[in-house]
């Protein structure tokens, strides 16, 4: 057994465990009662996909795939920021509308 076989077995085992974890996070995201719960799960899925892309980059021996991982980290962070801002803005706007309606009533 050469060292490259050992590397390939290790990387495939890591990818299998990550897949199971991603499915578990996805179930949490579907079932989570609140909005914050879902966003937390999506954040975790993003982190695990970053690790998966890095593992695949080393498994295939293609260093440029780590660039994809870097971009993925930025986009997943941006997605979380935008989702939080949008939900908070919608909630505050709706509450302001309700207060306005109560004041007129």
């Amino acid at each position, binding site marked *: 057994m050469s*060292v490259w076989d*050992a*590397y390939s077995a*290790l990387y495939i085992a*890591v990818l299998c*465990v*990550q897949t199971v*974890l991603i499915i*578990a*996070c996805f179930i*949490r995201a579907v079932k989570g009662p*609140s*909005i*914050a*719960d879902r*966003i*937390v*799960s999506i*954040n*975790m899925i993003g*982190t*695990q996909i*970053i*690790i998966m892309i*890095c*593992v695949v*980059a*080393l498994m295939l*021996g293609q*260093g440029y795939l*780590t*660039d994809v*991982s*870097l971009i993925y*980290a*930025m986009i997943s*962070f941006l997605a*979380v*920021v935008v989702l*939080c*801002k949008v*939900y*908070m803005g919608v*909630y*505050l706007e709706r*509450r302001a509308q309700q*207060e306005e309606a*109560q004041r007129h009533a």
Partner: protein
Amino acid sequence: MLDWIRFIITALFLIGGLSMLVTAVIGVYKFDYVLNRMHAAGMGDTLGLLFCLIGLTVSAPDIWTALKLLLIICLLWVASPVSSHLIARLEVTTNPDWYQLTGAEKDEDQEVEA
């Protein structure tokens, strides 16, 4: 021989990182309130990613790949606390029962008119 030493270091770091991630997922399922879950998810994610990427850095094929992996660690260590903070603020803002859950004093600015 050197290859095997690198392989063993990589395997140890990857197993450590994966166990951190498994702990984070178990914590996400175990706790019963969003902020507790977010604590488990944020801590476990950060440390798991650090361990996994340090392990991969040890056996990277060339120096630029190793530097890019370290850059990903730096980026995520800046981005992950910020996103956790934003999610916590979202939860505190949008949950009207938050003050009853924590037993804290109700803030004047956050007060909803009855």
